[in-house]
């Protein structure tokens, strides 16, 4: 697999207390465990099984993901930004790896 690279999209600006739309995507095969290789053997499951988003330590979204989530899992949701601060996004891989991304967001 290629290197895992999270992508985050936040609005350019928002006022304190606004709800903003957060879009995230991470490149990952999300190998479902349903597929077989050319030799007929089942390809073992390897997916992102959990995704979380926090803003200044407050949980925004905690998602438990199954193999039915498409490759390169995309998540779009809304977060409240009471003040300026940091979004922390975390993806948990079946293989034990944890990928994180941090985005600073300034309210006006």
């Amino acid at each position, binding site marked *: 697999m290629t290197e895992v690279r999270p992508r985050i999209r936040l609005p350019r600006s928002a006022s304190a207390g*606004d*709800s*903003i739309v957060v879009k995230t995507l991470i490149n990952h095969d999300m190998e*479902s465990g*349903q*597929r*077989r*290789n050319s030799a007929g053997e089942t390809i073992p499951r390897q997916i992102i099984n959990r995704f979380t988003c*926090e*803003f*200044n330590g*407050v*949980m*925004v*979204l*905690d*998602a*438990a*993901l*199954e*193999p*039915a*989530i*498409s*490759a390169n*899992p*995309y*998540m*779009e*949701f*809304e*977060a*409240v930004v009471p003040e300026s601060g940091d979004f922390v996004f975390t993806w948990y891989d079946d293989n034990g790896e944890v990928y994180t991304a941090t985005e600073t967001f300034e309210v006006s």
Partner: protein
Amino acid sequence: MLTRRDTLAIGLGASAVAMLPVAAAATPVDDAIAAYTGGAAIAEGGVTITAPEIAENGNTVPITIEAPGAVEIMLIATGNPTPNVGKFTFGPGSGAPMIATRMRLGRTQDVLAIAKMEDGSFASTSVEVKVTIGGCGG
């Protein structure tokens, strides 16, 4: 040599066998729902699912679920080999109980979203998505 009667019998047998997996397939979905709700009653409606009526590619079907007043949404693909798709829990920092993602659908089927409300009750809505090319193959 096959008589007309034999042919009929074979046909009946074949259709009985063909119907078996359908009857068996209802169970994992019921199990998934029961595991989530603990057998509690589920109200109809209150959840909005936005998904294409016809998905050409079952590998990546966009879906948006909105459930005002919900603290969590469980998404179930009733026709997939494993029905659970994802469970989305909204924390105190959530701006609205909504989630948009992309999912795999193995075939034409009903997609079911169950919302867990603030008071612990459940509500659900399902929509049918027709799939041209399934998303579970190799």
